[in-house]
């Protein structure tokens, strides 16, 4: 990856300091202030510019400071490191050699340049290119990267038909999860009669474990706005809405600033760039309902109603907001438009696989060394993402599964690590891209408990309209609760499967149609773990409370009394300096004693079985 693109006007050297919320919470504001001060004191202000930027994506390592044009990368920067960094920026200065360089998660060696870091150099950052390199609250930065040029090109050099054709030839598919070909919606909206049409950006990113839409809105809001304006021109709409969930206050704030600045510059509003095309964009804030990510529920929500989905057809492209033709796409889909217009459909279609073009953006989280947002060409394998970019599982533990697509997706085992990541391959494996969450789990996660978590989520977020979804997910949850409590029976597995299929078939919207996926895929790939819970009453990950017990090993206990103090139910007895004991009847298995017992003693063990076995 190359950071210096599109001619951002730079002084001799530029320090890019990440101001994503992740880095801010790690103290990047203090770093920014102190670096500016140091540079001024050293008299370097003319040669060195200090810039605040949006998220660099490698939040795990924050606060991050990048020095351009060399591409130096400093991670986990502390205020104490700032004087050294400032001195290194003087004309005679040398890059720092040890702290605060990033250390490779596999080898432990320090790495100086970000393009040598596997987290970055295996990625293909197209949509995310500006995130981390521009100040998202400053439209001037975006303009300096060539921003809004594609809007000029679209408005003055292309007809609406040509734009739709370009989108069609690019092969872009909707990046909200299902991968529906984008051009079909555009063409349908364009052909729909009437002059009252709407463009909606779906930023109701609710999947647990997914946050790439938030990162784009916070790091590069104009790229999304521009995609929407071009879409408006292509289909003949004059009004757009960005539907952002209430859980993302910073994204809403950044969008408000971006819309305001774009309006002042004449990119949004009446007669855009003095053309005869007018288009306005408004933010609509969601209010905490997962199902509103479904397009018809989202429409109902904007109309001020309960966010309940309705049957399709008619599709929103025919009859959407207030019955008018409406184009709804995901944040990432709109963010791709600038590239298709700017560089052409052929360039875009050159990235990715036969059926899935362009890049895929994932939020890599869970038990993974390098968590963060990654952008890769479609078709790269799960292994390359998890091991190549993500650096594998911390502590060298074995990989157990990866859950893609949140509550709609599935859990894939190690045997499927070579599955290519694209819409069709993931679907064939029983999972889906979803909005792009990727949660990696190791042997410490119980697969049944994981599936139960997602089903629990679905029961709470089901809007209640379709009985199979409303009642069926609750039935599944009851059964899964029984299994993790050691009360399951073998026939439960069959019931789960038939219920799951029934819910998929009998539900109106994507929520119900995909809610059983986590259970169905884990039954397919991790069936033996369900059977162990049911037959042997054993949870191999030692997670399910009713199937484990804690015991103090007399030979290792020094009677330090730490465990007795943390036990919330006073189940541990023993005087100081005496060997302690857990009363199994009282123990609620919260695990606090296990966590707090000093590692040098390691006197508390977590064992299989609900009780201590008598000899």
């Amino acid at each position, binding site marked *: 990856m190359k950071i210096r693109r599109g001619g951002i006007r730079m002084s001799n050297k530029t320090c890019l300091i990440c101001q994503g919320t*992740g880095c801010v919470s790690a103290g990047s504001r203090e770093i920014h202030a102190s670096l500016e001060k140091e540079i001024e004191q050293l008299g370097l202000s003319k040669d060195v510019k200090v810039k605040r930027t949006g998220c660099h994506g490698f939040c795990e390592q924050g606060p991050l400071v990048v020095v351009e044009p060399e591409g130096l990368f400093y991670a986990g920067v502390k205020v104490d490191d700032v004087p050294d960094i400032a001195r290194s920026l003087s004309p005679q200065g040398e890059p720092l050699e040890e702290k605060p360089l990033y250390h490779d998660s596999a080898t432990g060696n320090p790495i100086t340049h970000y393009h040598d870091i596997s987290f970055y150099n295996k990625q293909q950052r197209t949509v995310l290119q500006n995130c981390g390199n521009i100040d998202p609250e400053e439209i001037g930065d975006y303009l300096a990267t060539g921003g809004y040029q594609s809007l000029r090109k679209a408005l003055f050099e292309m007809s609406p038909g040509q734009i739709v054709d370009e989108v069609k030839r690019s092969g872009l598919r909707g990046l909200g999860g299902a991968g529906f070909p984008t051009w079909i919606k555009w063409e349908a909206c364009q052909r729909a009669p009437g002059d009252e049409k709407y463009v909606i950006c779906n930023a109701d990113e609710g999947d*647990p474990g997914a946050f790439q839409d938030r990162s784009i809105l916070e790091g590069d809001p104009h790229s999304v706005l521009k995609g929407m304006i071009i879409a408006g021109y292509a289909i003949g709409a004059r009004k757009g809405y960005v539907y952002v969930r209430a*859980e993302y*206050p910073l994204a809403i704030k950044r969008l408000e600033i971006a819309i305001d600045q774009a309006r002042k510059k004449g990119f949004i509003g009446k007669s855009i760039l003095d053309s005869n095309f007018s288009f306005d964009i408004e933010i609509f804030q969601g209010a905490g309902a997962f199902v509103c990510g479904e397009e018809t529920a989202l429409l109902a929500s904007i109309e*001020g109603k309960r966010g309940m989905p309705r049957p399709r057809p008619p599709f929103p492209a025919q009859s959407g907001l207030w019955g008018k033709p409406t184009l709804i796409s995901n944040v990432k889909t709109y963010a791709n438009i600038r590239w298709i217009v700017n560089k052409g459909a052929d360039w875009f279609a050159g990235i990715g696989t036969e059926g899935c073009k362009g890049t895929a953006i994932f939020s*890599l989280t*869970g038990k993974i060394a390098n968590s963060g947002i990654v952008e890769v060409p479609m078709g790269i394998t799960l292994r390359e993402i998890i091991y190549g970019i993500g650096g594998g599982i911390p502590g060298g533990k074995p990989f157990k599964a990866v859950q893609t697509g949140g509550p709609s997706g599935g859990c894939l085992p190690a045997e499927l690590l070579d599955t290519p990541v694209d819409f069709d391959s993931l679907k064939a494996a029983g999972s889906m891209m979803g909005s792009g969450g990727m949660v990696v789990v190791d042997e410490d996660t119980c697969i049944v408990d994981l599936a139960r*978590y*997602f089903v629990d989520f679905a029961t709470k977020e089901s*809007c209640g309209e379709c009985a199979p979804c409303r009642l069926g997910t609750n039935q599944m949850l009851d059964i899964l609760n029984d299994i993790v409590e050691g009360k399951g029976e073998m026939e439960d597995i069959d019931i789960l499967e038939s219920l799951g299929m029934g819910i998929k078939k009998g539900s109106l919207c994507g929520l119900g149609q995909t809610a059983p996926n986590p259970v169905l895929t884990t039954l397919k790939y991790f069936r033996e773990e369900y059977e162990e819970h049911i037959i042997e009453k054993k949870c191999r990950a030692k997670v399910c409370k009713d199937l484990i017990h804690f015991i103090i090993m007399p030979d290792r206990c020094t009677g330090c009394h730490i465990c007795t103090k943390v036990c919330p139910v006073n189940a541990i007895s023993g005087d100081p300096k005496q060997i302690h004991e857990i009363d199994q009847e009282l123990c609620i298995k919260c695990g606090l004693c296990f966590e707090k017992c000093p590692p040098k003693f390691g006197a508390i063990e977590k064992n299989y079985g609900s009780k201590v076995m008598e000899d």
Partner: protein
Amino acid sequence: MYQIDNLVKDLVKQHGRAREALMPILQGVVAQHNYLTDEAMVEVAKELDLSAAEVYGTASFYTFLDTEPRGKYVIRVCKTITCAMKGKNEIIEVLQEMLRINVGETTLNDKFTILETNCIGWCHKAPAILINDTPYTDLTREKLVKIIKEYMHQ
């Protein structure tokens, strides 16, 4: 102290009387008043010429449009799997201990409410919470105690 009917009238002036103004108006009331009282919902219904049941129906669908009393600072603890893997339960324990209330409850001085929420998108910096509009991430027991103490003194 403002009157709820004045607040609703101001919001109607800002957002209009059409049905699509309903959510922004309700959100405006929550922003000022922490939650939707019955009076507020009836007032909104009158202004928008809707039945009170319609207004309640919409409000009760959305978790951020609270119809239960809420404190000045609503602490939403992310309950998502990644936060759960990285110590969400301990976060809740600390909050309950410090504020002496359970999840879903509000302190007697109407200052704090603890709630659980769906993913707030900070999975890579888990565990995370939202206090009103501000996210706090990478929490530890010590960090959280410091944050809550600051709010207590505000």
